[in-house]
């Protein structure tokens, strides 16, 4: 069987989970993406993406942390699994490899 593939949206969400660490739950992830990226991803989309990531085994979740601002309801906190870490690292490696293949003069031309 083919190794589960990490889509672009999934990558963004997974990275945000990693960045937020123990504060990663659906609402906070959506808000972070909303604030830090120039594009807005709707809440239900993030919710589905997280479910998909969990099915693929890239994140695991547990319940916890009810606060008053959410009406005392529990949140589902996500953490990146080992498989998730690997997938992210691999992603990054693939990208850096490609970046490195771009000739330096071209990069200079781009002003990077």
């Amino acid at each position: 069987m083919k190794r589960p593939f990490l889509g672009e949206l999934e990558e963004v969400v997974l990275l945000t989970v990693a960045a937020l660490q123990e504060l990663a739950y659906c609402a906070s992830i959506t808000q972070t993406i909303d604030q830090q990226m120039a594009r807005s991803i709707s809440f239900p989309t993030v919710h589905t993406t997280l479910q998909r990531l969990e099915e693929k085994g890239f994140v695991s979740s547990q319940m916890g942390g009810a606060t008053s601002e959410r009406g005392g309801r529990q949140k589902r906190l996500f953490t990146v699994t080992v498989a998730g870490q690997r997938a992210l690292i691999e992603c990054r490696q693939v990208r850096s490899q490609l970046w490195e293949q771009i000739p330096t003069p071209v990069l200079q031309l781009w002003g990077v």
Partner: protein
Amino acid sequence: MGRITKGSKGIPEPADRRTSLDRHSARQPPRWAEWLLSQFSPVGLEDELQGDLQEMYTYWVKMVGLRGARWRYSLAVLRLIRPFSRSRTGPTQAYSQPPILSPTMLLNYVKVAWRNLLRSKSFSSINVLGLTLGLTCCMLLTLYIRSEWSFDTHHQHARELYLLGSRSTVGQNAGREHAAVSAPYGPALKAEYPEIIQMARLYMADEKSLLQVREQGKPLQSFYETKGYQVDSTFFDLFTYAFIEGNPHKALTDPHSVVLSEEVAAKLFGSASALGRLVRIGGDAGLSEDFKVTGVYRTSATNSHIDARFFLPIYTGDIGHFLREGHPDFANNNMFLTYLRLQPNTAVQALAAKLPAFIEKYARADLKLVGFDQQLFLVPVPDLHLYAHFPSVVTPTNSVIYLYMIGSIALFTLLIACINFMNLATARSAKRAAEVGVRKVMGAHQGALVWQFLGESIVLTFLAFLIALALGILLLPLFNQLTGKALSIREFVEPQILLIFLGMALLTGLLAGSYPAFYLSLFNPAKVLKGKFTNSLSAVALRKGLVVFQFVVSVGLVLASFVIQKQMHYLRDKPLGFTQNQQIAIPFRSGDSRTTYTAFRNEILQNNQVVSAAGTQFYPGIANLSDMVFHRPDQSVEQGHDIRTNRVDFEYLQTMGFRLKQGRMFSRQFPGDTANRIVVNEATLRQFQIPETNAIGQHLNFDWQGETIPFEIVGVVHDFHYEDLHQPITPYAFMLSRRPSFNYIIVHVNTADMTNILGFLEQKWKTLRPDEPFEYTFLNEDFQKNYHAENRTSRIVRTFTLISILISCLGLFGLATFSAQQRTKEIGVRKVLGASVASIVLLLSKDFLKLVLIAIGIASPLAWYAMHQWLQIFEYRIAIPWWVFVAAGALALVLAFITISLQSLKTALTNPVKSLRSE
């Protein structure tokens, strides 16, 4: 841990409801969305989703504002709840995209649907036509029902508004309900009970008033206006009118002010502002004085039983004078509609329970003087139009039963059209069987096929919907004429109503398509592709059942409209016991005009076309307001009975053409005929158990303030209807009036030229009462006014019955066409073997006519029962004759036969060479 219960965030109830609502909505996402989320969250995720979304909501409010946040919240909920949330079936998903989402497949569906429509133009047009008619009926009747239902719901305080009704009773008599009471009730009630915040009285002075505007430099402008009502200055604190100019709460404080509707203002002053300008108003209300315009209100599309075109203060004109100087008491002059506005959340029952005590405290003394008792009750203002039992309150009322009746007709019409669609679709399913087979072989699920066929029927319905919309708008003026309403196109295209119509069309499409869709999608591909296709027995039976149902409805409607029409004829033509035609009633609306009675009568009797004329207090067809309790001399007062009384002039009985049974009528020849002699009707004798033969000379006693006054019976007239035929005939007595003070003069004429005689009467009136308008009504028309609701309903039922029959026949035509097509070969063979045209027509028609016969058999008892129930509201009614069933049945059979013959004749006449040559 866990959820906070709903109770803990209960909102305190601040004084002002609106601000609390605003505050609430700022903090809370839309309630319906919250509810949806709480009920339909994916299993196991309820808690986190609700929490997350609440946090998101707070965030969105900060980022995009309240409206944006509410919008996003609702969208998110709709995407997250079952069944829209992502199913958790795993990665196979990518391959099983529902066909409904694939554009290629959709395009194919549309193409196939379109080809099918074109291939069978006649069937498609039958379907579209039927659905169009059904939808048009439904739309128009929905508008009608909505408009009837919306009476007086738009007032800001609608739920706190009540009309004070009264029931006057004498002795053990049940009494009659009146919408109007005497003048002091309103103010006294308000002063007595703190629950009553405000009251307002309404008085209808003139049916028509003359409005004149004289301004410098412009010619004098005069208009006759109807529907000008006199009201208390508090009126606009109760009823909501949208003022364009002026302040509603101060508008009528000055006795010489007037509030105009937009239309009247435009008529008088054009587009310029009307505020502060002067109008001279004639009639009893205006007395030709000048009134200053203090307000102009928008004539809205919303309905109110008070359909005023302008308002005058109640303390003006004749009635103003009466209120200030006439010392109105609690018993007489019951002519003020009295409206109360209660505190919000008042227990109405509790207030109503206090009203008998109020009568004792305030009204008892006055009531004793006139000898009757009175009970008060409260009617919610929004109920006045449909639920109250008054035949009219300012405007004629309707009955909610008639609305149900009309509503069910609308539904049935649409249902019949749906059945047409179902029957044609299943009957012709053979044509689609191959397609279904191929699709299934190619891997279509049953679900996909169901959606395909449903989609087709919905598309067809929408086509019909668009045509129906256009047709409805086109027919609106005709419909208005039929119903006597003033519905406008604006109401037709209101977004809310359009949405309802759209929903209606969608539902129709689903309903019409449901059965065919499931039926077609169940075909076994192996069988149908082999070409072995037979309509299943159960499907044929169901189709027959549906045809029977259609005709049950149609025949039932025909029967109902026959019976209704017969009853209406009966109401119109039943001998009432007096001469209805050629009788003109002229009212004396003021004290001055009453004094001219004798002179006026003498003047008009000069004309040889005037047969006779006589004054009276009341006449049949209008409410007979006075009654007295009599008892037989050998019985006690407690054993007495109530008799309606009417004080009349000597010639009244002859003028009205009452038929004498015993004794004699009043006559000027008998000097002994004074106020203490009476002529009674037969019902009186029955009530008092006086044998007819010794009625003459018998006395009836009347007790008044401890004194017993005997009345002598000098004559007995045949029973006659002094009220409409909803009411039974009860005891009635005529007595002479001491002095000529009559409310009306009845003029019996004998002429073919009514205009001429009316001109003559008016001219005589003008010479005696130059400043009072001449008014008249025809006696027979006054009587018919009591059947307003019935007449209107009868017209509507008749029209829509026709339409429903038309749709049924359309369907039958379709089925007949189909079966004739199917049997083309068979008929060809029969003809070759020598069958006659008649036998073939009979062969083709037999099956359908059988169904119609069954339908007649089912419909007759049902319709009989329903109509029997309806007739109970009339005290005088027809017995449903047997021949209406025969007539309705024959009509249905003949129509069905003609419909079928159109097709079967054509088939039977076809040359067999043509039908047989292809094989």
